[in-house]
């Protein structure tokens, strides 16, 4: 039976999405490790389906400033994936790749921004590769877009894109561990409902 919105997901279906989240973030940590040339591990990620307000609180409130890298999913699945990059994460990347960190988002210049877009792109693509491999579906990603602004406004983008269908979003959160420090990893995936049904069927977890 097809689900009509995220509230209808069964326990088994949510567990399957969690498993995808776990494999996807594991791959993202490996990719990040190769990029910055250091060992990066990731804590067991938490995959949850959240309402908009809950998701905003989860990443730290609507007015906090953050960077976001966004790609649209096409091919056999439609949706949006967003990598939320908070200051700690940005400095983990910038200090290791470019050798210099920043104290405010306003200091980000072209070179730093293109590095962050690339990191976001790598995280999103490795995650999506894991997903498409598991489900045996082909997913295309658009060229990533970048923005620095209030978290609330950035998070609204995937919500508004499919907001007519559901008020829920899939959040994937874990902590990268590098140099004995923990840095939050925040990914958000919002497939449209038709695609979510298709995905669950392909994974073989949906009741026929």
């Amino acid at each position, binding site marked *: 039976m097809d689900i009509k919105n995220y509230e209808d997901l069964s326990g088994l279906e949510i567990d399957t999405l969690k498993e995808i989240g776990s494999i996807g973030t594991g791959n993202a940590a490996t990719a990040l490790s190769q990029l910055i040339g250091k060992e990066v591990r990731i804590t067991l990620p938490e995959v949850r389906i959240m309402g908009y307000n809950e998701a905003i609180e989860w990443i730290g409130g609507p007015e906090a400033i953050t960077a976001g890298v966004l790609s649209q999913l096409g091919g056999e699945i439609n949706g949006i994936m967003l990598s939320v990059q908070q200051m700690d994460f940005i400095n983990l990347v910038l200090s290791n790749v470019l050798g210099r960190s920043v104290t405010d988002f306003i200091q980000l210049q072209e070179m730093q921004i293109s590095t962050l877009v690339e990191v976001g792109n790598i995280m999103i693509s490795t995650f999506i590769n894991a997903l498409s491999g598991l489900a045996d579906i082909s997913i295309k990603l658009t060229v990533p877009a970048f923005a620095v*602004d209030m978290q609330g406004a950035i998070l609204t983008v995937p919500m*508004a894109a499919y907001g007519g269908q559901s008020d829920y979003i899939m959040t994937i959160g874990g902590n990268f561990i590098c140099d004995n420090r923990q840095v939050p990893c925040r990914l958000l995936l919002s497939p449209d409902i038709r695609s979510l049904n298709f995905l669950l069927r392909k994974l073989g977890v949906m009741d026929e």
Partner: protein
Amino acid sequence: MKMAGDGEKLITYALGSCIGICLYEPQRKLAALIHIMLPLNMETGRKNAYKYADTGIRTTLREMEMKGACRAAINAKIAGGARMFEVSGGSLGNIGQRNSESVHQILRMEKIRLLWEDVGGTIARTMEFDSATGNGTIRSYGHPEVKF
């Protein structure tokens, strides 16, 4: 949607492509602030009226009237409707613009005067609205505060 009188202040945070609509009835000093996310309500159950420009504005106007507001005196000030990401193609990039067009159209149809607007662009806005005066402020990251 939040409503206030007696000089209370209303606030809505981080409007991106969403639009904040301040409705104000100056005689009774009754203020309402709606935060809409999408232009038109096409839900079957129509559960979340305030999420959409059309049902959000109309429901709020009715509630203001029930609180004793004089419909003809109600005016509007709006902000938001930005484009947060430069994405090529698709409908994703222009949700802000469609929200703005819809809000304008509904206000026109309901004969509500639009006194002030700050819509479009690429920045998020936090909107604060004072029921004592019908004025407010817009806060954005990396830009000076705007009074309205």
